[in-house]
């Protein structure tokens, strides 16, 4: 069996007349966490839907836990899915959620489900529609963890959560990863979520993968440069990514190997994940400038 938790290879998927995934490739070895980073509308959810077989693709290959996608239905026993919205009947009580879903999973663990709800402070008698967003996400996590999935896929689970709930979620992911066979794909536009748990990152923008690799490699691959308003105007062969100009400073992201070409009076610093995401996700008009 492949030691790859999942892989997308050259995936194309047209979504609308104006948006498509184009030649998307990234993969995660088993036992790690990948953060899928991109602005709203970058293609994160579409990539996840393709990976899960929820959306057909126009081309390319997808592998999930050693199987091609679309693959056997039983593969879904191994995958826990937490999306940015609940997809359960609003009038179900949490006890009814278990009764509804249990018949579908061979390894459903009712004790674990009830234990997780208890741990998360969720009442079995509560209705799904009455849960706050944070609680609803916790419910979906409890469901995903109760059938002993090997791969957890989170799509924007932290958007709209308060810092405490986000911290709890990171802790839950950490616990899940105590088993070396477990892997996590975590899409977000809140990059600080990945500072603690992300092993691999994929940056996606406009339906294309901008860069994929280990977190350290990606952090090493870019530099933030800051200079006076006109100091970055007369450079040759350097691509400025997501240039931001104010009356007093110009800031941009550059590739590390190109940063060496900059003059000594240009401030060059290692970027944070957030800075990389912000500059790469900048609107097309100011995303790239080759000077």
């Amino acid at each position, binding site marked *: 069996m492949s030691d790859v938790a999942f892989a997308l290879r050259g995936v194309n998927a047209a979504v609308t007349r104006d948006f498509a995934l184009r030649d998307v490739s990234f993969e995660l070895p088993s036992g790690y966490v990948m953060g899928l980073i991109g602005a709203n509308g970058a293609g994160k959810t579409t990539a996840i839907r393709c990976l899960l077989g929820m959306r057909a693709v126009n081309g390319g290959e997808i592998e999930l836990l050693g199987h091609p996608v679309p693959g056997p239905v039983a593969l879904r026993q191994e995958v826990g899915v937490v999306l940015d919205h609940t997809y359960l009947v609003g009038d179900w009580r949490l006890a009814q959620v278990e*009764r509804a879903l249990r018949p579908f999973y061979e390894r459903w663990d009712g004790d674990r489900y009830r234990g997780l709800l208890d741990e998360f402070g969720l009442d079995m008698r509560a209705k799904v529609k009455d849960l706050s967003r944070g609680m609803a996400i916790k419910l979906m996590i409890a469901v995903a963890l109760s059938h002993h999935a090997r791969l957890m896929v989170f799509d924007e689970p932290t958007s709209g959560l308060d810092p405490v709930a986000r911290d709890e979620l990171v802790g839950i992911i950490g616990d899940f990863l105590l088993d070396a066979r477990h892997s996590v794909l975590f899409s977000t536009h809140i990059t600080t979520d990945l500072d603690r748990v992300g092993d691999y990152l994929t940056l996606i923008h406009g339906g294309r993968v901008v860069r994929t690799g280990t977190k350290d490699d990606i952090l090493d691959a870019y530099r933030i440069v800051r200079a006076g308003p006109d100091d970055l105007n007369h450079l040759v062969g350097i691509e400025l990514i997501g240039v931001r100009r104010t009356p007093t400073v110009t800031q941009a992201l550059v590739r590390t190997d190109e940063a060496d070409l900059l003059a000594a009076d240009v401030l060059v610093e290692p970027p944070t994940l957030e800075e990389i995401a912000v500059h790469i996700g900048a609107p097309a008009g100011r995303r790239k400038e080759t000077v």
Partner: protein
Amino acid sequence: MNPVARMVMLNLRTVAPYRNQGLAAFVVMALLFVNRPVVLVPTLVLLFTTTIAAYPFNVGDKASLQTLYATLPLARRAVLFGHYAWALACYLGTVITGTVVALLLAWLQSVPFGGRTIATVLSLSWGMFAVNVAVQFPLFIRYGYTRINLLSTVLPLAFVATLVIRLHLSLASVHSWLPWTWPVGAALIVASAAASGALDRRRRQPTTTAGVNRLSRQVSA
């Protein structure tokens, strides 16, 4: 339990929270039928059946249950067939209940209500039910309940009206064409399930590759 049976159970669980509203609606409808001929009882039940059969689509639209179905270890075919099996189970359950209630009322009111009348009522109710499901379900699956609800109510009636007019069906000749409602109804449901499968596959197809190619050309340019 096989996957289709699991889907039927999921539909039961989907509508279960609304049983009280359903019962209330049933009581109101029953009150409207008080002192009406006993033969109308199965008709009342039939009205109720079509609503229950379609209710998982209604709840599913509101609760994004298509996403749930896609994440469950459940083949798409089982989801589709499960909806039809659920509808048939609803029909069986309600028609048996309706017939028993009608027999009971007839006995209490000393009204004749026997074999031939029951056969007529059941055949008609099956025909109406089959047309309803056969027309509505593919539309629900392709377009969703909310978008197509009004049209899906009108279309089965239009279909039946067209059949009555084109085939010159009349109450006078009811016993000549009535037995045909069973096989024709069953055939309609089978054809509808096949159509649902095809429409569902089309719905899940990605946009044409032209979109990818055009966008790639724009990027290259």
